[in-house]
């Protein structure tokens, strides 16, 4: 780099700015795009949450109503049910994702490169599979009389080897995975798990790339077992990525929308048994055409996510953000 002599002119100054203004220049695209496309929706929805607005009546039909939308949303029993569902789904599918993804990523990294490549590609596939295909396939898999899941359970109950463990199966058949208020949440959680675990594996694989190889080599020379290397090297050094992925999962899972929407065909399930907050606010805004309450709910959800993320940052942020 030494041969580059500093040039004069605005272009050079832009490309090699003084140290003080460099971060701002680097962040300029984000700041500009945020101001143009991000800030306005934010302000718009704050404004909206204090107004009554039926969108199809046009922008000038908004009516100021103070905190009424928030009060109305707070007293809505369905919202509380949706909150419970959301948290249930977030925890179940979120925990499962990470508990599976971290060890899997470690094992994959240790594998030979060809096999690893094929396996990671396979695990990543659900993340890119289009919603249409997913909904078609999962619908028929969960189908009560003809679905592959129920057929498998029946086959297990009839087999000699596992029959004893599945003797309860014939009594409860057909299991209506998507209509039963107890089964629908696990059914949704499984789809979420199926879809995002591979994505987390890829994230963690990226993270494992930051761990210098010689650390492992040194540990191996010292005679540390695979488990020990995982526990004492991989896990601590993965921390920024675990922190990041968990942050994402908190935010993403609490905004869960698409998977329950597909599996319940937008109804939210019998007795709102799989309706999430995002689904509910979509329904209120776009179907009931009450954008005011929908905005209020979205801000309540925002605050909830904010609180949980803040706790997460407080507890793990020091190591997770790796501040020097």
């Amino acid at each position, binding site marked *: 780099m030494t041969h580059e002599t500093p040039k004069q002119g605005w272009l050079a100054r832009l490309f090699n700015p003084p140290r003080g203004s460099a971060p701002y220049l680097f962040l300029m695209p984000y700041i500009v795009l945020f101001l143009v496309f991000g800030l306005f929706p934010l302000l718009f929805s704050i404004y909206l949450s204090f107004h009554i*607005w039926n969108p*199809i*009546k*046009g*922008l000038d039909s908004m009516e100021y109503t103070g905190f009424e939308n928030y009060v109305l949303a707070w007293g809505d029993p369905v919202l509380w049910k949706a909150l419970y569902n959301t948290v249930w789904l977030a925890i179940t599918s979120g925990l499962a994702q990470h508990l599976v993804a971290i060890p899997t990523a470690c094992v994959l990294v240790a594998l030979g490169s060809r096999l690893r490549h094929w396996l990671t590609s396979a695990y990543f596939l659900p993340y890119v599979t289009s919603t249409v295909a997913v909904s078609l396939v999962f*619908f028929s898999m969960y189908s009560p009389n003809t679905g592959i899941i129920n057929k498998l359970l029946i086959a297990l109950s009839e087999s000699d080897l596992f029959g004893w463990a599945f003797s309860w199966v014939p009594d409860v058949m057909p299991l209506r995975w998507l209509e039963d*208020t107890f089964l629908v949440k696990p059914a949704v959680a499984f789809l979420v798990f199926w879809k995002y675990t591979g994505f987390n594996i890829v994230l963690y694989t990226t993270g494992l790339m930051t761990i210098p190889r010689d650390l492992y080599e040194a540990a191996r020379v010292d005679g540390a077992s695979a488990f020990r290397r995982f526990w004492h090297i991989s896990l601590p050094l993965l921390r920024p990525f675990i922190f990041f992925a968990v942050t994402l999962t908190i935010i993403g899972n609490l905004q869960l929308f698409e998977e329950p929407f597909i599996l319940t065909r937008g*109804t939210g399930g*019998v007795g709102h048994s799989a309706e999430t907050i995002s689904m509910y606010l979509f329904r209120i805004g776009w*179907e009931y055409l009450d954008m005011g309450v929908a905005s209020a709910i979205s801000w309540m959800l925002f605050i909830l996510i904010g609180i949980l993320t803040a706790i997460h940052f407080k507890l793990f942020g020091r190591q997770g953000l790796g501040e020097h």
Partner: protein
Amino acid sequence: MIRKRFLGLTLAAFTALGSAQAGTEIRFDGFPDFDSSLKKILPEFKKVHPDIEVKYLMNNWGDHHNKLTTNLATGSGAGDVVVVDVAKIGAFAQSGGLVDLSTTFNAGQYKDQFPAYAWAQGQDTSGHQFGMPVDLGPGVMYYRNDIAEQMGVNINDVIKSWDSYIEYGKKLKEKNIYLIASAADVAEAILTTTVEEGNGIFFDADGKPLLTSPRFIRAFETAKKIRDLGLDARVSAWTNEWYEGFKSGSVATQLSGAWLLGHLKNWIAPQTAGKWRVSNLPDGIYGSWGGSFLAIPKQSAHKKEAWELIKFMTLNQDIQKLAFRTIAAFPANVNTYDDPMFDEPIEFLGGQKARRLFAEIAAKVKPVKPAKGDHIARSIVMDNALMEVLDNGRDIREALEEAERLLKRRLRTL
């Protein structure tokens, strides 16, 4: 190859633009299968109105209505002619975002050309017309004639009342055949077809919800009875098991619109040709399943041309029949019903003159006054309360009372 094709299409787009400058270009926003019928209709339209160029934009049912909501919200971007489904027309007619066809184009003069009920569906609460009916879904009962014969029943006895319908179901059950795919259809049929004089489906004339009225209780009780007796297959529409029921004959009847016929014949169960028949709905009721309307958003810059296209598609009998032949959209214009085509025997239905029946039913459906909160009430009652009663064993009155409470909370934005 892709590149070449892309270039070709761009060129085509440019030439289209060039020729459009001679006249006015308008856009038609809808959902499939309107594109299939427009492909046939637009060349005809061009002959009558060479100065109007029509483009169309299709999105799926849900996307189309969400896009239209965005367009009306922001006052821009909507097509000049938009399709609105019957499930959404209530809300959109009240919105103020559509052109009042009564005052602007004196649409009232065409009232007699449409069934009274469809005409009323396109109105707001004060009786102004916002949507012109373009197709209908007269409600019928499809039934397996071979099964009825095998059971030794006359279908007219079966549809006499809901009780006789249920009796038939009990007999079927002994042979392991289901009466109907989902009991929910029965509840919906009773709710929407037995509306008291002066009331709307979900609200009375003053806008008070009727969710706990005897009609709702009766509808829910009848459906629950069917479910509790195990007479329905507990299968929801448009699933593999639903299609399978039609194919295998494990389900003996289905309440639906006239449009289902084409799908049964073409792809759901073509191998059952000759086994199906249609009849009136049970209990002497007349109702409809589905239907679409054409409307003009106020933001349109070419309202006059848009109206010409709407008139062409709804008033022109040849075009209405053309759409019927192309995509089996049952004509909304009653003048077409004189056509001999309506007396043609339908082979799939064993030679039954079903279209005549559809037309008769369309004329007999009672008009129901639309109310502002219909779209919300429908979702709360049909998607939530009814399913809780049927699938979750919830007490009927309790479920309806809660539904009414939830509905009341939602009514203030209307």
